[in-house]
């Protein structure tokens, strides 16, 4: 089970530190947040310094459908010094197979010149329904990418982007038919780069709607059963459940926009984002909490602490605030690795049981915290526990386990 850094704005050496500390297996660069020159240099450095690392580029082509919106936030995807494959597209453009083929060739051709360890193909987000024009376009991207790699490829593996909005998962039958179809492709890729788009507007990094996590797990499980490698982007604290379902790799970053996937980060926004309050990821609670909450809890409930090496970056004498955003990122990666390790042992059934046991332990701690009179903020509360329990049960039913 690999953990990758989901690159985004404000790296500041976090990825290199994560690799140095053995917390990360690699990185998925986000094209928006790095210029072509800088990307090339960074990839070269990583290839030299960490030759075994996973080095991927998310081309973020899915932003092409909103690229023509005034005020769209596209960073290095557009402008004079931009990645050359990216263009604004309308849906009608992509209804033509020739346009899709061309975009794929351009995107893969660009990656061929970079020391990435594998290719990631472009795609759009299926935002409403698998049985839609968007669904059809997405399937065209999937099929054509595999064909194109035979021309543009050089032996490095291909991961096809499969980006789905949570809303599209509502129809179980459509999802199952879609999965059947893509797992019967004549010329399949080695794996999938799976993205699940949040539909609510909260900043919380977990997907809290019913029937979302279970179906995301089903996609992982089905693809894995069919011999594909599965890399999940933007997973953060949901990582252990996806890992239990069969994911090969998960990725998360340091800001909220790198912890859950949403096209909103490309869309125009009138307001300025506030700097987030720093957090501590607790393995025992299966969740991150504010550093101030950590400070309130750590003496009375020491089990909230992970007893891992980056705990000491949250100094009680400093009110348990982490000493830097890099430390916060490293602590999060360290905790997610620990959670994944607890979850994934043996087969899927055993891993799910491990997850359930971890949820029981977390619930027991939350009950004691509540009994002590401490109230956790919404994003730190026990609200996830019952939901995830239900989702694990729903996944078991869907996967016929």
């Amino acid at each position, binding site marked *: 089970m690999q953990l990758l850094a989901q690159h985004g704005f404000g790296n500041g050496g976090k990825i290199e530190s994560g690799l140095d500390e053995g917390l990360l297996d690699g990185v998925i660069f986000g094209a928006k947040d790095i210029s072509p020159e800088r990307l090339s240099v960074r990839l070269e450095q990583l290839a030299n310094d960490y030759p075994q690392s996973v080095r991927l580029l998310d081309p973020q082509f899915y932003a092409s459908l909103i690229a023509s919106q005034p005020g769209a936030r596209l960073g290095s995807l557009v402008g004079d010094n931009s990645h050359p494959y990216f263009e604004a597209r309308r849906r009608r453009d992509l209804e033509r197979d020739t346009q899709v083929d061309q975009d794929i060739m351009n995107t893969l051709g660009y990656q061929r010149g970079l020391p990435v360890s594998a290719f990631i193909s472009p795609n759009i987000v299926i935002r409403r329904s698998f049985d839609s024009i968007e669904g059809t376009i997405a399937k065209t991207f999937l099929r054509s990418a595999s064909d194109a790699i035979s021309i543009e490829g050089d032996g490095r593996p291909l991961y096809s982007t499969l980006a789905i909005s949570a809303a599209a998962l509502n129809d179980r039958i459509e999802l199952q*038919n879609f999965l059947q179809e893509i*797992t019967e492709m004549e010329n399949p890729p080695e794996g999938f780069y799976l993205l699940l788009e949040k539909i609510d507007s909260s900043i919380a990094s977990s997907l809290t709607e019913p029937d979302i996590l279970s179906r995301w797990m089903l996609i992982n499980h089905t693809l894995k059963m069919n011999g594909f490698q599965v890399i999940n982007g933007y997973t953060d604290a949901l990582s252990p459940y996806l890992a239990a379902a069969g994911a090969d790799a998960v990725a998360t970053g340091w800001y909220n926009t790198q912890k859950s996937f949403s096209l909103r980060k490309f869309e125009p926004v009138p307001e300025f984002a506030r700097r987030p309050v720093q957090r501590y990821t607790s393995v025992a609670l299966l969740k991150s909490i504010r550093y101030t909450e950590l400070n309130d809890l750590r003496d009375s409930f020491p089990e909230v602490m992970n007893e891992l090496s980056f705990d000491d970056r949250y100094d009680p004498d400093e009110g348990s605030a982490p000493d830097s955003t890099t430390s916060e990122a490293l602590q999060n990666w360290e905790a997610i690795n620990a959670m994944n390790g607890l979850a994934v042992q043996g087969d899927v059934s055993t891993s799910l049981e491990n997850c359930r046991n971890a949820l029981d332990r977390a619930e027991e701690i939350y009950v004691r915290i509540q009994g002590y009179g401490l109230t956790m903020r919404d994003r730190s509360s026990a609200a996830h526990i019952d939901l995830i329990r239900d989702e694990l049960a729903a996944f078991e039913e869907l996967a016929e386990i």
Partner: protein
Amino acid sequence: MPANPFTPDVLSAAFPELSGFGHIKSGTFKTVHSVKTSCGRDEVLKIIRLPQDSGTDAARAFREQELGRAKRETALLADLDSPYVVRLGMVSPSIIDLGGENCVAYTEELLPGRDLEAVIADRIQPDEADVKLLLSALVHAIQALWTRHKTVHRDIKPANIFATGLQDRPYVLLDFGIAYNVDEPGLTVNPSHIPHTPLYMAPEMLDPNFRESLSYRADLYAAGVTTFEFATGGIHPLAKTGDSLAKTYTRVLHQEPARLATIRTDLTKNLTALIDQLMKKNPALRPGNLSLILTQLK
């Protein structure tokens, strides 16, 4: 009700290049005889009775359906090149009048051994290697059907598999009469009729719109059920004998199959898990990468 076999006299007159006619079995429309060809080779003569044209549209359509199926079956067999699929014999398919009945007739190779149904009836549990041989042969046959021909057999079951005892083709798939090419127009006259054998039918085939998404995974399901039955010495993963058709359909759709590992504790976990996975209700959960399955079975 099985049709009456043709007499050797009728057959000799129609097929002067064949001799030694021996009746093997008869179905509603199909009759099977063992024969010797003029080259001295033992083959099987298959005769499919075509419905008589009584002049009504329905009768004509039914006759066209049966004729079309026979043509497709033989064209498919002629083009398939797999040791795990029965081969056509000396007599090419043709429409022929036999004792006043319109029929399609052709020959296939005569395989040594006996059908898997008879083997299973011995109630002997095979060893792991033999279970793998059977499943591997079926997956090879499914791959041959699908990869080039986009065809689903739709009737994989013990009675349609021959256990030959041959080293290079220990199990051979027979009877492609209801095979369905997903790229060709359907032949079935009655849209509500699904040709199948209920206990081996993939659950998705009970969906009225099953043809839209039908794929080789329906055959993988039947291969899983068949292999399970073989491995357990005759225990069907779903059925109790004597169930009504409606009850059987309910089981196919909703009942969780028995887990092979609970019955054959001596088989490796990888093999029992693979066979169990082939019997999942949701086709997408059945492993779709045929080459990968074959690798796992080595």
